[in-house]
């Protein structure tokens, strides 16, 4: 760790695990030593397929991820997993429990699984998850699965990071109107109706297909495939892995790649602007002025940016 800034990257290339784990810790902590590494970290990427797995709490995301790991291992792939669980807004503590479902792969040298706490982010992943995914890519994992916190309707941040987003639903997801609401289902590239061994799974899948084919997902995209899976029996898991693999090419079309890049740059820009503004000398005074209603928040933001660009 003390042998030059690029040392951890060399170790990643050799498939060493502890240096990767320690780099992930520095990434998560927003350690200042990470910033100068970023260009070489991204340049060292090996084109691993970044796959987001999201859906409501208890829909079986972790169990399904566990089955997908097994499926891809049988196909000879090295699988990286980032599993995010929520941090307490009060104590900042967290229970990271996604490993419980995945321990059978713990000792497999070709599976690397890391739990992350959301650390104050509300979009379903942590602010640093995308950099962690880049580190797993540089370490040669492919695919890289990003499992979000249990998501409701609007935790769509994972779609910014993932090339392919899988939304996991359950047969009891609700009526047809749920399928046409904006939000989570809209960012789905693939929908898995999990717990497919329960009654109503096929009907839920049919309803989803019918509603999505008329209401559409994102504009001018063809509706996402809706698959029925059972993480407990393994039924449908191979088909889901096939669908994810097949989507890789779609996700890498110039149009899709550009759209994702734009979204990533916008987010980075917003974060950077906020960070710089908050470090500015005018910060305290400007915030005070908003608090005392002398200034509106948008004018305040303009002044902070104009004063510091």
């Amino acid at each position, binding site marked *: 760790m003390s042998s030059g800034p690029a040392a951890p990257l060399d170790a990643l290339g050799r498939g060493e695990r502890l240096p990767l784990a320690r780099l992930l810790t520095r990434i998560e902590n927003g350690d200042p030593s990470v910033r100068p590494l970023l260009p070489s970290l991204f340049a060292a990427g090996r084109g691993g397929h970044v796959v987001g797995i999201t859906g409501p709490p208890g829909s079986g995301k972790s169990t399904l991820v566990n089955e997908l790991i097994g499926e891809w291992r049988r196909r000879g792939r090295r699988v990286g997993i980032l599993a995010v669980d929520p941090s307490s807004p009060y104590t900042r503590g967290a229970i990271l429990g996604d490993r419980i479902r995945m321990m059978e792969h713990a000792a497999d040298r070709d599976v690397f699984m890391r739990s992350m706490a959301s650390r104050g982010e509300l979009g379903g992943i942590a602010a640093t998850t995308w950099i962690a995914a880049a580190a797993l890519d540089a370490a040669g994992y492919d695919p890289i699965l990003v499992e979000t916190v249990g998501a409701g309707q609007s935790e769509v941040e994972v779609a910014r990071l993932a090339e392919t987003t899988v939304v996991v639903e359950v047969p009891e997801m609700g009526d047809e109107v749920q399928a046409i609401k904006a939000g989570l289902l809209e960012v789905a590239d693939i929908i898995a109706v999990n717990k497919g061994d329960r009654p109503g799974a096929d009907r839920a899948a049919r309803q989803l297909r019918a509603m999505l084919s008329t209401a559409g997902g994102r504009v001018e995209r063809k509706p996402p495939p809706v698959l029925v899976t059972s993480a407990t029996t393994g039924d449908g898991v191979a088909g889901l892995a096939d669908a994810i693999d097949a989507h890789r090419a779609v996700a890498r079309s110039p149009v899709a790649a550009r759209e994702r890049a734009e979204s990533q740059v916008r987010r980075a820009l917003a974060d950077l602007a906020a960070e710089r503004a*908050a470090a500015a000398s005018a910060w305290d005074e400007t915030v005070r002025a908003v608090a005392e209603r002398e200034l509106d928040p948008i004018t305040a933001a303009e002044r902070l940016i104009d004063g510091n660009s």
Partner: protein
Amino acid sequence: MNDERREDRSRPIRVIIAKPGLDGHDRGAKVLARGLRDEGFEVIYTGLRQTPEMIADAAEQEDVDIVGLSILSGAHMALLPRTVQLIRERGMDDVLVAAGGIIPDADVVKLKEAGVAEIFGPGTSIGQIARYFRENARRPS
């Protein structure tokens, strides 16, 4: 405002709570996990029936500061020294290993010699454990 931002950046201590061996009682481990969460720790809970290899591999990938082993089965002399050994073999020299459960005093001495830093018996409060962890976890890198 700035205080809040600074606080966001300070790093929570990461702990893995694991149950080595075959005993099926994890109420205590879960209560501890929840209590440590409330104390501001990030707690990775692995569930039941873990081998020392699985625990060491998980600790490595998670880059935890502390490994907490909960054991009630009586197999602690077989499992705990082996777990410590595997953790050290993976290069995690600075990771604190502690245990909790029903462990006879005579074994406590031997386990400490084997590298288990502390052993918490019945009646230990979560506050005591949290304090011990805060005082003895490796310093932020």
